[in-house]
């Protein structure tokens, strides 16, 4: 399991560094007040990272950043981006930019966009009605 969060003077943040096969429950409970979680992916076929990331995003008390490092395909970077990960580093020699320039959007993202848009529109309507 994860090392205890430690205070790092140089970058002045609380960093938690874990492997992708970390028990999700433990990680989630250890993630409160952490500024950044660095997840290491040992092998690109292990898709647990995607659920791990999503669980962290859903966890209300975690407001930090998620960074991912390890053996991933450039093509998988897109999936991580979709799940909200912004910092990704491949350490398997593959070029992160060597992926299709245009990446297909999934139905899931489209629905989420639509739902967010609807909520936004609804808020506007409510606001205008309240004015």
């Amino acid at each position, binding site marked *: 399991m994860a090392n205890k969060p430690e205070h790092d003077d140089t970058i002045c943040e609380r960093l938690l560094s874990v492997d992708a096969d970390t028990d*999700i429950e433990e990680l989630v409970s250890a993630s409160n007040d952490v500024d950044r979680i660095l997840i290491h992916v040992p092998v*690109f*076929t*292990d*898709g*647990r990272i*995607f*659920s*791990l990331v*999503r*669980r962290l*995003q*859903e966890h209300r008390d975690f407001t930090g950043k998620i960074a991912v490092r390890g053996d991933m*395909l450039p*093509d*998988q970077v*897109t*999936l*991580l981006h*979709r*799940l909200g990960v912004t910092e990704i580093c491949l350490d398997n020699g*593959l*070029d992160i930019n*060597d*992926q*299709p*320039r*245009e*990446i*297909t*959007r*999934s*139905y*899931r*993202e*489209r*629905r989420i966009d639509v*739902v967010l848009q609807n909520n936004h529109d609804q808020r506007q309507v409510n606001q205008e009605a309240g004015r």
Partner: protein
Amino acid sequence: MYAYNLFDQSLIDGRVREFRQQTERYLAGRLSEDQFRPLRLMNGLYFELHAPMLRVAIPYGTLHADQLRMLARIAREYDRGYGHFTTRQNIQFNWPTVEMAPDILDDLSRVQMHAIQSSGNCVRNITTDHLAGIAADEIEDPRPWCELIRQWFTLHPEFSYLPRKFKIAVTGSPRDRAVSLLHDIGLHIVHGENGERGFAVYAGGGMGRTPVIGSLIRDFLPSTDLIGYLEAILRVYNELGRRDNKHKARIKILVRSLGIEAFRDLVEQEWQRVQRDVPPLDDDEFSAILKRFAGPSFDAVVDTGDFAARQLMEPAFARFVEHNTIVHRHAGYRAVYVSLKAPGQVPGDLDAARMDAVADLAQRYSFDEVRTTHTQNLLLPHVAMSDLYAVWKVLDSLQLATPNISRLTDIICCPGLDYCSLANARSIPVAEEIYQRFADIDEVSSVGELRINISGCMNACGHHHVGHIGILGVEKRGEEWYQVTLGGSSSEDAALGERIGPAISRHDIVNAVEQIVHTYLDQRIDADESFIQTYRRIGASKFKERIYGEQA
């Protein structure tokens, strides 16, 4: 049939371009074989025994005539002139090259088709009852739900690298014609007492080397919660499914090791979380999908023409009507099976010329629609009875009218050692020999409903576990042997066949099948008692004695 909207089309177009670049990177050495593997599998491309194999998705087994014509064209231009329909209602081409695959996908996209997630460790083609929208006992048409699930789990960022493949089947009738209890998830449409729509959810079923019948994990899931609940199941599986052993990686092993109660609890917990992110389905979203399912506009009153007279005049036509057609819920129509099982024909194979011919029939007589069945046949779903004779004439001339649907020569059979790199034994020649042995159609008729399923190895692509007679190829000292199971069923009364004794040699296997059939004929109470009913009544001993002698 579902008609694509702009987004659907742009998604598959984008996917084709993406896969073309992935293939280029592989061919240029910028992706290793191992790195390319999941990318190509998620686009249906396998590297098989003799050549690559491309599996094209046929979502819930529905095609329109132009789509079937495109499959014919692909068979002709990129393959050796034929395709193979699979037990998951898809089609496989056995001889394309890697370089061709992006071009084939490009051609497919022109007719709203693709190979997305037809393989790989992700959510596969959603399958269903081939009689959806036809069967009299149907509660609700399952296909729009299949489409909803298909969309949601297409390129889903969380579930594209699962421990293993993931198969979902949906059925809308009490009679299960979708083998749903042998899927990772089986969904049964149920309506609550006050008409609320929902699903009974079964999980953890599957065939393969450890066959398991799915367990009920929820008896009523409101349909608005379907997506969130499926996500919860998939997430529990993604997190906890085994990744250290390919043969223990399916959800059935997880469900078994946790126990159904603990598994259910985990899913429920996860579902509470997932709901924050996945809002319940609203009516508008589902109606948007429903709207794109334009059904056929049936004639209100249909003149059945000389349908009855023709049957009296031509017994062969009468037999075809009896065995290969199904009464349609809409009066005056029938659903017509196109039997891909005939002597000299590999079960499920169809050549390009005959694909075109079936497409023409669909266009002219079946509201443009053709379906694939998990039993590896095709179906013309809506044929007016007055047209049946003409349809039969054409099918008969194409050798697609063998009146054997659900009979003992309607064999489900995997490609086996002739094509598959994992096989222990051949399966196609065994099926062929059974046809030869039971060439007399009167005999086949008199035996009644009997399902023989053959797999070339434990992976069970030929569904041998759920065949009334199951045949499994095994290898012993470099020779092909076959294990026989009896009493399997894939319906709502799903059961796994029981092994009746030691493996039987290639030389003797078809004799053994014949002995089994004769034992049944001797033992049945009357012609109304089917093979499976007789087997359930008398058990295996009489069959064993006949095959193995007294010592059994």
